[in-house]
């Protein structure tokens, strides 16, 4: 047990437990449980990373106590209605952390203790393991991955911060040993209709997805589900895989594998524009050896002049004409429409994409309604994304539509780097899943704390017109993504209204009707709070651009470039 340093504040208490590690999710669960104790107003149990310390300071805890903590220390920050409650709560937390029970009301982990097993004994006794899902800190991944490759076990590595040199070594060794490595940084996969990691309850069907963009896989699979098209496999290979250094090693392996699946008709490749060599490899595979129909979704590929490596891109559109079996897309929405087109052609039937399509006139109506009460001084949009691919796609669209100046903590163009990710500037697209927000914290799809604070903060600026928010439902995500921030959305709108401003909040919910969080319920609560909900991120981005551009957007051109032209939602 570590040493504790109590603060002297009368209604607040900050304890620092030195060299005391707990998983960020365990701490999140414990924090949530303690917040439900009578009289406890705030409870934050976190590791002492810079991000966590900044958040605690924003929550009003004393900086002098927090500053002492190192990233290997645990901070327990409590606020209660009176001292007695504070004093009574601390021993309860200590008891839970020690695992001695006492008045313990929760388990630190949902899996029962007898189900938590030692790796060596499991490898020695269980023979039918076919995949490992790894979400340990990045520095521990390499040793673990090599050990599992030696055992012939495929892996999905969710962990971030795995050095690229390690990734290359792991993947080369895996190829040699006929093992599939999904990731590092792969949060999402679907294998035979089962979601692994952050994934959605989609129907299995004739589509397979190979993705180097996790939320991209979720968006494409859920939108296809809304159109009645099933996805049997979705293999996330990690964002570094299409870079020249890794050489698309696992993208190639995944394509070869899926080409041999008899129940797959269409393979959709979702990625930021790959390096030139990897792009060529993918195209060569599809054109020379591929047995399926393909959609190549290089997000922003036709729009940004540079690819994932900063190289100049060739126009991917030219490739479309090489072969009818390949369609090139530049957004997730156009990717889904292209996949649906392939399916309609294969089935020789008409296919409706109405559930995910917004006719231009409808989108214009939403834009006009939202902007009619926006004042002249309200010029900027702020997008607070939990899904990294959405942050990227929105930048592609806003850049393409000439929205300037534009900044991001994960910029598409280096010159658009936001100097301080904790503070937006002019038009800002924030990816809350980036390292600066997640070191020692659960991912924002699980932990809404940072976004809650940020929604209210953005609403306090006079020059902000629009907030753009994504809500990702499904396995692994927060049990109620919309419910966890709906009070802050209402508060933000109320703050603006009191200052005689209209704050427009535009949302997109990524999920299916079978996701446990309730897709329709999520939509209803947002709409009831005055939030227009668009069926895809691309439509949300175009709508947000339309609101701040105040009439300067050519919607027809925007649709042509980022959505694709279809006839009243029908594809044949």
């Amino acid at each position, binding site marked *: 047990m570590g040493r504790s340093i109590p603060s002297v504040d009368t209604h607040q208490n900050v304890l620092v437990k030195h*060299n005391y*590690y707990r*998983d960020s*999710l*365990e701490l999140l669960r414990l924090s949530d449980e303690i917040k439900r104790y009578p009289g406890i107003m705030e409870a934050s149990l976190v590791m002492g990373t810079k991000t966590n310390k900044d958040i605690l300071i924003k929550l009003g805890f004393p900086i002098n106590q927090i500053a002492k903590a*190192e990233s*290997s220390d645990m901070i327990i920050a409590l606020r209660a209605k009176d001292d007695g409650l504070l004093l009574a709560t601390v021993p309860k937390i200590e008891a839970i952390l020690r695992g001695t029970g006492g008045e313990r009301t929760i388990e630190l*982990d*949902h*899996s029962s203790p007898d*189900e*938590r*097993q*030692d*790796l060596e004994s*499991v490898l020695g006794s*269980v023979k*039918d*393991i*076919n*995949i*490992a*899902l*790894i*979400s*340990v*800190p990045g520095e*521990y991944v390499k040793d*673990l991955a090599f050990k*599992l490759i030696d055992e*012939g*076990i*495929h892996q999905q590595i*969710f*962990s971030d911060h795995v050095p690229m040199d390690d990734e290359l070594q792991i993947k080369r060794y895996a190829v040699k040993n*006929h*093992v*599939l490595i999904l990731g590092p940084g792969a949060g999402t996969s679907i*294998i*035979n209709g*089962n*979601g*692994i*990691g952050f*994934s959605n309850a989609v129907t299995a069907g004739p589509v397979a997805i190979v993705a180097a963009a996790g939320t991209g896989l979720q968006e494409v699979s859920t939108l296809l589900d809304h159109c009645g098209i099933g996805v049997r*496999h979705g293999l996330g290979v990690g964002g570094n895989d299409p870079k020249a250094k890794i050489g698309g090693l696992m993208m190639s*392996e995944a394509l*070869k*594998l899926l*080409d*041999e*699946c008899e129940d797959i008709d269409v393979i959709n490749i979702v990625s930021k524009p790959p390096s030139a060599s990897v792009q060529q490899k993918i195209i060569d595979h599809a054109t020379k050896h591929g047995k399926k129909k393909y959609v190549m979704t290089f997000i922003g590929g036709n729009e940004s002049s540079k690819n994932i490596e900063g190289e100049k891109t060739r126009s991917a559109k030219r490739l479309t004409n090489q072969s009818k079996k390949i369609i090139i897309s530049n957004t997730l929405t156009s990717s889904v429409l292209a996949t649906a087109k392939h399916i309609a052609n294969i089935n020789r039937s008409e296919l409706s994409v109405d559930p995910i399509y917004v006719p231009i006139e409808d989108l214009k109506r939403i834009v006009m309604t939202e902007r009619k009460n926006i004042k002249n001084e309200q010029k900027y949009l702020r997008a607070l994304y939990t899904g990294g691919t959405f942050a990227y796609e929105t930048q592609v669209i806003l850049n393409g539509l000439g929205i300037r100046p534009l900044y991001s903590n994960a910029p598409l163009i280096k010159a658009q780097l936001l100097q301080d990710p904790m503070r937006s500037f002019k038009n800002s697209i924030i990816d809350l899943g980036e390292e600066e927000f997640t070191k020692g914290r659960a991912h924002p799809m*699980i932990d809404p704390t940072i976004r809650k604070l940020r929604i209210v903060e953005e609403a306090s600026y006079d020059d902000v017109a629009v907030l753009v928010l994504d809500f990702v439902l499904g*396995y*692994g995500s927060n049990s109620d993504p919309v419910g966890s921030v709906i009070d802050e959305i209402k508060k933000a709108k109320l703050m603006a209204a009191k200052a005689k401003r209209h704050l427009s909040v535009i949302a997109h919910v990524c999920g299916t009707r079978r996701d*446990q969080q309730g897709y329709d319920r999520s939509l209803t609560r947002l709409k009831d709070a005055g939030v227009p909900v668009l069926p895809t991120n691309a439509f949300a981005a175009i709508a947000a651009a339309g609101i701040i551009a105040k009439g300067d957007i050519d919607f027809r051109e925007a649709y042509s470039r980022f959505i694709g032209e279809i006839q009243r939602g029908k594809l044949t």
Partner: protein
Amino acid sequence: MTNRSKKLLDSDLTVLNIGMSIFYDALKVQNVKVIQIDWKPGPTLDKLSEEILSKIM
């Protein structure tokens, strides 16, 4: 592609979950066979010990 990879897509899954238990729960909900590994990071040195070690090694 090898039989080993093909088998992954054709067989019932047995997943080793090493790390965040939220993913264990998500697989259980789908009736996927999953084993939670009891993983903890190795001991880390405090800064002073690291400095001393780096000087003597």
